[in-house]
C-alpha cells in the first residue's frame, strides 16, 4: 500500500472521497431573477447586462491567441457589445483561455474575487473543462469549476472565434433568462471552493477575511 502511495496513485477510498469533494457544483443560489420570476425592471437590466459584456481576458494559455481574432475586423465581437476591460473592477466576464497552471489559478481566483456582481465566467478550450491534453500534468488544474463557478464552457482545442462568439451568445441567453452569474453562489459556498483551492495552491496567502 505504502509504495503505491508514493507513486501518487490514490486509493479507492481516496478516490471516493475525492469524488465527493471535487464534485462540480451547479448551484443556483443567489439567482434572484430566473425567467419566470423576474420583474420588468430586472428584465430591462438583464437586457442591458446581456448587451454590454466587458471582458477580462485572462490570457492563461494558448487560447489567448484567439481573442484578437475574435475582437478584430473579421469576427468583430464588439457588435454584441463585447468589449475588453482593463481591470477586474470594470469587468463582467472573466474569460479563462486554456490550460490553467496552479500558479496561475491563484491569480485567477484573485481576479475573480475582485470582480463585481453580477459576474460571469467563460471557460475556454478543453483544458479548462477536463485538463485536455494536460490531463496528467502535475501542475495544471483539470476542472475549472471546482475552483471558481463557471457559466459557459466552450469546447475545442482551440475553439475557433466562431465558437467563442457562440459561447458568448449562449452566455447572453443565460443572462436574459436570469441563469448566469454565480457571484452570490460562490460567496455562499465559499468553504467548499476554498478547500479545493487550498488543496492545489501550496503557498496559500490570501487574507483570511473575505475581502472582495
Amino acid at each position, binding site marked *: 500500500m505504502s509504495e503505491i502511495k508514493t507513486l501518487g496513485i490514490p486509493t479507492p477510498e481516496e478516490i471516493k472521497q475525492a469524488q465527493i469533494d471535487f464534485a462540480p457544483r451547479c448551484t443556483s443560489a443567489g439567482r434572484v431573477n430566473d425567467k419566470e420570476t423576474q420583474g420588468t425592471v430586472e428584465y430591462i437590466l438583464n437586457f442591458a447586462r446581456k448587451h454590454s459584456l466587458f471582458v477580462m481576458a485572462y490570457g492563461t494559455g494558448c487560447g489567448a491567441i484567439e481573442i484578437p481574432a475574435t475582437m478584430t475586423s473579421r469576427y*468583430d465581437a464588439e457588435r454584441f*457589445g463585447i468589449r475588453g476591460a482593463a*481591470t477586474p*473592477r470594470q469587468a463582467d466576464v472573466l474569460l479563462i483561455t486554456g490550460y490553467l497552471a496552479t500558479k496561475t489559478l491563484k491569480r485567477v481566483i484573485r481576479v475573480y474575487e475582485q470582480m463585481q*456582481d*453580477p459576474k460571469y465566467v467563460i471557460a475556454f478550450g478543453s483544458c479548462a473543462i477536463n485538463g485536455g491534453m494536460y490531463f496528467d500534468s502535475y501542475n495544471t488544474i483539470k476542472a475549472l469549476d471546482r475552483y471558481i463557478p463557471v457559466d459557459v464552457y466552450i469546447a475545442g482545442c482551440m475553439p475557433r472565434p466562431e465558437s467563442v462568439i457562440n459561447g458568448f451568445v449562449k452566455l447572453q441567453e443565460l443572462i436574459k433568462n436570469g441563469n448566469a452569474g454565480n457571484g452570490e453562489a460562490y460567496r455562499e459556498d465559499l468553504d467548499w471552493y476554498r478547500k479545493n483551492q487550498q488543496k492545489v495552491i501550496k503557498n496559500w496567502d490570501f487574507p483570511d477575511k473575505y475581502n472582495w
Partner: protein
Amino acid sequence: MEGILFKILGAFLTAILAFVVGMFYGGLRRKVTARVQNRVGPPVHQNFLDLMKLQSKRTNIAHGFMGHLAPVWIIIAAITVLMFIPILHGDLWFNNLTMKGDLIFLLYMMVFGSLGMALGAGQTGNPNSAMGVSRGLAQLAGFEIPFMLSLIALMLQFKTTSISELMQVQESGSWIIVQNPFAFIAALLASLGMFRYSPFDIVGAPAELASGPRSEFGGKYLGTMMTGGAVFAFIKLVMYVDLFLGGAGNNNLEGIAGTALGLVELLVKTFLLYMIPVFIGLVSPRFRTEQAIQFFWKWPTFFGLLAIGWALYKNGTF
C-alpha cells in the same frame, strides 16, 4: 417664483440634452471606429447599455472617502460648466447662467473635475492610477498653453472675456474661425489633448496602465464617471462651436421651431467638429508623455502666438 421654476426646468433640459447627445456621440465614435476598421461595430446606443449595466451592478467597492467622491467631482465640474456655457443663441430654455461667468472661470472650472478625479484615483493606492494621474497632469500643462493662447487672442481681438459676447460678435459679423483662423488652429490642436484620444491617450492607456486613473473604479462609480465624461465631451464641443463656429440657434424663426432648428444646427456643427479628433485618433499611434508635451509646446503654441499677433493687428494695437 415662476421664473425660478422656469430656470430649473431649463437647467434640467440642458443637462438631459448634454447627457443624451454626449452619450450618442460616444456611441457614434465607436461605430465610426468600427467602420474605419472594416467592422460592423456596436449599435449607436451601446453607451446607454453600458451605462445601464454599470449602474445595475449589484456590488461596488470604494477605497475610501476620496475614492467615493471621485465621480462627484466630475459631475460637479460637468454640470457647473454646462450651466455657464450658452447652448443656443438667446434661447429661453438653454439660457441658464450664461452671463454670470467668463472664460477664465470656465477654463479653471474645466480642470476641477480632473483634479477631483485624480484625488479619488490617488486614494485607491493603485500605482497605475497614480502613474496615469501624473501623466494626465503633465499633459494638461502641455495643452493648456496653446488653448490659453488662443483664448487670449480672442479676448484681445474682441475686447471681451465673456463667451456670450463672443457669440454676439459672430452674430453680426463672420465666424471667428474666419476672423482669427490661427486661434482656431491652436485651439483645435489643444482639443486633441483635451479629448485624450490617440495620439494623446497615454493617460488611460488600457494595456499599459490598466486604464490609468479609473483602474480601480467599477459599477456605479465608473458609470457616473462615464456620464460626466459624456457631458464633458458635449461641453467641449459646444464651447468650440460657440467660440469659433458662430454658435447655434442664430435664426429668425420664433418659438419651438427656432429652437429645433438651432438644435439641429448645433448637432451638425458639433458632430463635424467631433469627427476631427476622432479621425485623427483613428490613424495615430500613441505619443509618450514627454513627446505629447513637447508637441503642444511647439506647433500649437506657435499658432497661438501667431493668433495673438493677428488679434493685435486686427484690433489696431499695431
